[in-house]
């Protein structure tokens, strides 16, 4: 919940006060923060007890349990959103293109 509040504060700053010329700096900050968070996740995993042992003994079953639900999720959400959510996006784009012509 706090994440949403922080993001909301950012939205407010971005829409009201943030100078356009700092946009690139904001983008760089996002890249650096992203890499640091990913690195920190790696450190936490590496420090987890039995991490390598677990990876080798239950690897195949875990792979099956990851790949099927993940791929199914992607396919289902892709199909549903193409049908119900992207339609309006596409219509808007088509309208814009027609207006340009």
């Amino acid at each position, binding site marked *: 919940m706090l994440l949403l509040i922080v993001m909301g504060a950012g939205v407010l700053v971005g829409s009201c006060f943030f100078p*356009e010329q700092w946009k690139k700096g904001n983008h760089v900050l*996002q890249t650096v923060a*992203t890499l640091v968070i990913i690195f920190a996740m790696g450190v936490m995993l590496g420090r987890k007890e039995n991490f390598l042992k677990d990876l080798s003994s239950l690897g195949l079953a*875990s792979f099956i349990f990851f790949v099927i639900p993940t791929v199914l999720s992607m396919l289902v959400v*892709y199909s549903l959103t193409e049908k119900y959510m992207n339609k309006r996006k596409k219509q808007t784009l088509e309208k814009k293109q027609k207006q340009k012509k």
Partner: protein
Amino acid sequence: MVLMAMMALVLGIFYGLSGMEWRLPDFLAAHSGWILYVLMFSVGISVGMHHGLLQKLREHHIKILIIPAGIIIASAIGGVFCSWITGYPLGQSIAAASGLGYYSFTGVAMNQIAGPEMGGIGFLSNLMREIFSFIVIPFAASRLNGYACIASAGATSEDTTLPMMIRYTDEETVVLSVINGILCSAAVPVLVPVFCGLS
């Protein structure tokens, strides 16, 4: 960016495994929560600078729920297939698949309810989902759509995989990604014990 992200992950794992205790990496790892807040604020600024975005979100209305509902139902169905292939009990299999990438909770919960083997599978399969998302998001964003990226990330779409969303999708998808992550993260602590109890 994918390469840099993977390098950061591998470097982090090696550092963690090495047992070294350097000041800067330890400080960063210990304060990653604060860095996430900085990132979210920065993302908020990007969203705020994108005028007309809120209007777009209002247009979707209740359809926003299509994404988390699709992820939860498809993952549970995936769990049924996994049970059929591996021979593990149906309820526990659906529970592992319903972790939606929330590996810390799923691993611990399944370890307590179903034992260490299923706990290990719950942990590793959901960890793989998170790592896989880092690799697949750039491709899914260009070949499928931004929403498919959210589906891959599952419950992690509000935190760890959010940076990849920011990088490879648009502001609208990033906001939907956060909403989806919150809803999925709230659902996992309910789904995993409930499905585990079915076995």
